[in-house]
């Protein structure tokens, strides 16, 4: 058995262990070398002192992401639906929305929306504003995820639903929705991880989520590396379980093809 090479689908646990160890050693070595070159030693002892602020920031990130998930899902569904609307103005509006939002960086949207639209309409609550901006951004991606799975629905499935005598309502409930959910759920879960990471950009309009909290702390104690290192760990705490769940869902729904 070659320890370093595995054929698809048959990785031995010994092989896995050896190679995980190898990768870890390599990574640690690279960082160790880099840190010793610039003469930095890590000191995380300050973190407990900021416990309450960190907790609040972390909860703010979770809250922003959760609220944005709900709102962006609604926006995504509506926009996917409008993209196939018979009313041309609505269809073009939805297409324009998806194209422009997906074609521009989030940070530009945050500034434009917050300082122009937000100010003009008097939206001052930063949390609310943050959720709105993030949802508009993520909704465009979700719209495409949903539209993609709608397009991939096989016509014969709908004909079969007719043939067995399902009503229109039953067809939606028993055939279209379950298949659509099965197809979109893995990708949507992945998108939730993106929402969490993208919410970090809201720090630029001073929403005190976890990234902004870390920026503030690092500007007080100048422990930039430790702060950002800890920040990365905190994001992983949120995103790793989600990407794990996404993988599980993907495997569960692979019956599709």
């Amino acid at each position, binding site marked *: 058995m070659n320890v370093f090479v595995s054929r698809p689908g048959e990785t031995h646990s010994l092989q896995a262990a050896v190679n995980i160890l190898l990768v870890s050693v390599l990574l640690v070595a690279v960082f160790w070398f880099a840190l010793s070159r610039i003469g930095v030693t890590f000191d995380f002892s300050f973190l407990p002192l900021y416990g309450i602020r960190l907790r609040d920031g972390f909860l703010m990130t979770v809250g922003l992401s959760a609220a944005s998930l709900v709102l962006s899902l609604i926006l995504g569904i509506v926009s996917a639906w409008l993209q196939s609307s018979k009313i041309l103005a609505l269809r073009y509006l939805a297409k324009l929305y998806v194209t422009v939002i997906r074609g521009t960086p989030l940070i530009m949207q945050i500034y434009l929306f917050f300082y122009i639209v937000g100010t003009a309409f008097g939206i001052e609550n930063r949390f609310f504003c943050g959720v709105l901006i993030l949802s508009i951004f993520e909704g465009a991606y979700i719209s495409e995820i949903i539209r993609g799975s709608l397009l991939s629905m*096989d016509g*014969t*499935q709908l*004909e*079969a*639903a*007719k*043939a*067995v*005598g*399902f*009503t229109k309502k*039953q067809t939606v409930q*028993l*055939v279209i929705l*379950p*298949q659509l959910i*099965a197809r979109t759920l893995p990708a949507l879960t992945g998108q939730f991880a993106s929402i969490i990471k993208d919410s970090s950009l809201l720090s630029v309009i001073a929403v005190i989520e976890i990234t902004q909290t870390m920026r503030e702390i690092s500007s007080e104690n100048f422990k930039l590396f430790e702060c950002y290192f800890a920040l990365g760990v905190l994001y992983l705490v949120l995103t790793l379980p989600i990407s794990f769940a996404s993988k599980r869902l993907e495997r569960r729904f692979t*019956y*599709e*093809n």
Partner: protein
Amino acid sequence: MLRNISYHDDIRAVALIGRSGCGKSTFLRILGGLIPASEGAVRVDGEAATDSEEYRKKIGFVFQQGGLFSHLSALDNITLPLEKVHGLSQAQAQAKGYELLSRFGLENEAVKKPAQLSGGQKQRVSIARAIAPKPKLLLLDEPTSALDPEYTTEVLDMIRELRDEHLTFIIATHEMGFAYHACDKVLFLSDGEILEHGESGQVFAEPETRELKEFLSKMLEWKV
């Protein structure tokens, strides 16, 4: 697509033959109430074939392929319409589903999703689903033309078994042997018209039109 279709008969087992694109699928879909006829009237047992659930649930339909719901197991494919359309209780539907699956040697596939079944198994489950509510007419749209030859036989055997139990069906098929031996009547469609119809023995032995002669000679060219 179809024109000058005028056919009236007492049927048991009918084979619908003709070139690809001649209108066989359209014919069956109108008969099954899946698409409305643009004009004219179709009646099955005196009931007008309409594009409605009420009519469709009395007709069984088997598609060429992909007709099973891909998110449901073989068993659920059979039981769900029984419960939701025909008002059986869950227990009754399950019992009926198991009975059909084991009767056709599919009991080990009950919990499998369509993607885990062979082509032949899929079609047999499709047929089981279609006959579960005891339809007054079963329509099969080229049920074996997407299958490898070894699976074709198992599906055709199943249909012949159903014929022996007096299930009435119309099958669009390219299997001339099956049309000849297992169906008592044959309809030949060409360019959307019924050019010939009659007892299968007679239609195959004495084709009248040039189109059917050509069609048959092509179909039988490589027969041993």
